[in-house]
């Protein structure tokens, strides 16, 4: 058992491009769920709209990535409006069902063979980030020899990504200490009380949905920049659920919650994955092949993830930083 290798890859993933993506997605969910109490289960849909926007801006419309970024943000905002109109006046679980369904509608439509001319079907879209690659100021890889290293491209993605995270955290911090943010929190606590104070709850919820969706769009941009490709499998329903786990580990309704959550989440997931893959590898594996083969070993981290999400929500719903009293979330 090579614990140094496991530790190295866990650190590499904890700060790597994937952690950035889930951090941004969780920041969006933090606005939705942590601050406003909106149960958006379709964050993957927002990410997908944005990810495909920058891909298609280059491949279909032959414009720059920047046009794709603008279009992606607009489409994410539009999606939030489209989801909010039928559901925000209804009970919380309706929003959950509709968002999860919409994300799946978008995914299956984009993945359809009928549109493969535009979106590449199941294979997705590639060859669109040359502009981003050319702007890479780094030339060598970075890391601690023998432990971990990031390629020059990874470092470039991480620089952009963590800058976006810092910026997003600042925006969330400023928004939530403003009077507007206090209204959001009181909507989460007691919607009717806010309504009785003459606030337009529906409008506030809609604004929160749009802003959180835009953070989701940033996560979507990072997906396509990191992978240099987009495909329907990148935006499966589980992506949203993983982002929720990230948020809940760090602590909902805390500005830094998603950041800490993403780092811990990817550290643990990678370490677990590395442990079980090593425990089943080789001629004389630690865990006998009859109990677990390498394919099954790759599932262990998700089994633990599901279990962890349940236990977290049951025993420490406020995560690491959250305040339990503040997060007395419940459906009304």
């Amino acid at each position: 058992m090579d614990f140094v290798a496991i530790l190295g890859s866990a650190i590499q993933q904890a700060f790597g491009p994937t952690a950035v993506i889930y951090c941004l997605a969780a920041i969006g969910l933090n606005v939705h769920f942590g601050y406003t109490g909106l149960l958006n289960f379709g964050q993957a849909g927002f990410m997908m709209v944005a990810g495909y926007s920058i891909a298609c801006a280059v491949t279909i419309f032959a414009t720059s990535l920047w046009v794709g970024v603008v279009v992606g943000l607009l489409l994410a905002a539009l999606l939030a409006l489209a989801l909010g109109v039928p559901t925000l006046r209804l009970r919380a679980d309706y929003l959950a069902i509709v968002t999860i369904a919409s994300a799946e509608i978008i995914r299956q439509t984009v993945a359809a063979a009928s549109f493969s001319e535009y979106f590449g079907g199941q294979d997705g879209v590639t060859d669109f980030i040359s502009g981003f690659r050319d702007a890479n100021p780094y030339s060598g890889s970075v890391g601690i020899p023998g432990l971990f290293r990031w390629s020059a491209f990874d470092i470039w993605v991480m620089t952009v990504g963590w800058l976006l995270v810092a910026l997003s955290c600042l925006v969330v911090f400023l928004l939530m200490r403003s009077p507007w943010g206090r209204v959001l929190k009181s909507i989460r606590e007691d919607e009717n009380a806010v309504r009785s104070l003459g606030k337009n709850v529906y409008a506030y919820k809609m604004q929160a949905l749009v802003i959180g969706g835009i953070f989701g769009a940033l996560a979507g941009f990072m997906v396509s920049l990191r992978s240099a490709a987009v495909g329907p499998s990148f935006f499966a329903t589980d992506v949203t659920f993983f982002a929720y786990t990230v948020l809940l580990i760090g602590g909902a309704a805390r500005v830094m919650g998603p950041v800490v959550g993403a780092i811990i989440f990817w550290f643990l997931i990678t370490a677990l994955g590395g442990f079980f893959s090593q425990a089943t590898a080789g001629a004389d594996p630690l865990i006998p092949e009859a109990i677990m083969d390498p394919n099954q070993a790759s599932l262990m981290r998700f089994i633990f993830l599901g279990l962890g999400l349940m236990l977290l929500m049951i025993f420490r719903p406020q995560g690491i930083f959250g305040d339990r009293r503040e997060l007395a979330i419940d459906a009304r």
Partner: protein
Amino acid sequence: MIAVLALLAPAAATAAAPLPTADAGSVCQVPERDEADASIYITGCLRDLREDPPTPVPGVAITLSDAEGNELAAAESDENGAFAVAIPGDPISALGQQFVVAVDEESLPEGSGLRNPDDVEQTITVNTDADQSVAFPIGDPLPESAGGLTLALQLTVGGLVFSSLLAMAALGLSMIFGTTGLTNFSHGELITFGAVVALAVDRLPGQIAIGGLNITVIVGVLVAFVVSAAFGWLNDAALWRPLRKRGTGIIAMMIVSIGLSIFLRNVFQYVAGAQSQNYSQYSAVTPIQVGPVQVTLKEIAVFLIAVAVLLGTTAFLKYTRTGKATRAVADNPALSAATGINVERVISIVWIGGAALAGLAGALLGVTQGFDYQIGFKLLLLVFAAVVLGGLGTIWGAIVGAFIIGTFTELTTLFVPAEFKFVGALLVLILVLLVRPQGLLGRAQRVG
């Protein structure tokens, strides 16, 4: 093998793509040819799939044309039903080109036709210089008027069978929601659980037989029903009841159910693998002709079982003491408790019943179409659509909603490609929330 493919592959999918008939060589002898002949051959075997084993069909004319429709070559099937037609010219120049292989329907024996009339012409893209094989499954000819109406009827039959299973799953979800307020995102895994349990029974060594009749899969389905019921009780007793006692909020419980869903789904993949599974019996059966449509006996059996179970459950809810108590709890838990109803006991019964229904639906889905570890997760959104359409928490609503959604998904394939059928159902879900959020049979009340 061809028979299995012809049965299982949806009509639309077989129309354009050449069938993967890697096995064709093992069952049919392609005519010998000169070693030096480097031409690319299009080969295939014509077999009458109504016979078991399938019998060769000789003397059928096959033509090969290029993409513009100019005829290039022709051949006739030999006494083995096999044919081979060479693409004329330099093999290199044929690479990347499309060719059309067609069967002359006039030359088919009297009373035979192609299983799928769209197969008469099949387009083939030549990408390598290896020979390519095509399949023309031969069986009963479709009636002359195999137009929109027959197709719609055929799809309705398939939709009804699917709906009846969807309704069982939806009824469980709706009852659990009605009594506990929980929107259970792990309900799909209860469906998969049933299918996996039936598979486990099926994979036991040996067969279960009564008087020489192999009933392994039937026993598997029954075991799945019973074990799922126990699993539902376990779900409630080990997880949800303690959470209710702690006063955990509904939203927190929804997120717990997502964790449970991820956990169970990966455990299912751990034990059953990622590949698609079929039970040892009934996976390939020949359909019978009923009027203008084709149905398989297993579809009829599954539909009858499902309808009987649905009727039984609704009768139980309507007429028995426990059933009435269940409806009372769904209506108002606090008031029911005040009138002396043991609410926890009712909820426990609902979990047992709901999980048993979902597990039975999963096992029967496994019988009708096979399954993989995420079949329940894929169906979950359709179950939600059905329940929301009918009215969350209502009993008849779940069933009505499931039959509408189930037949709707099948019938939409008349107008749009099959890959969009789920999309259509989910759009219905959103439209319903816009127009009538309480659902078809729900009571209009302020919900938000």
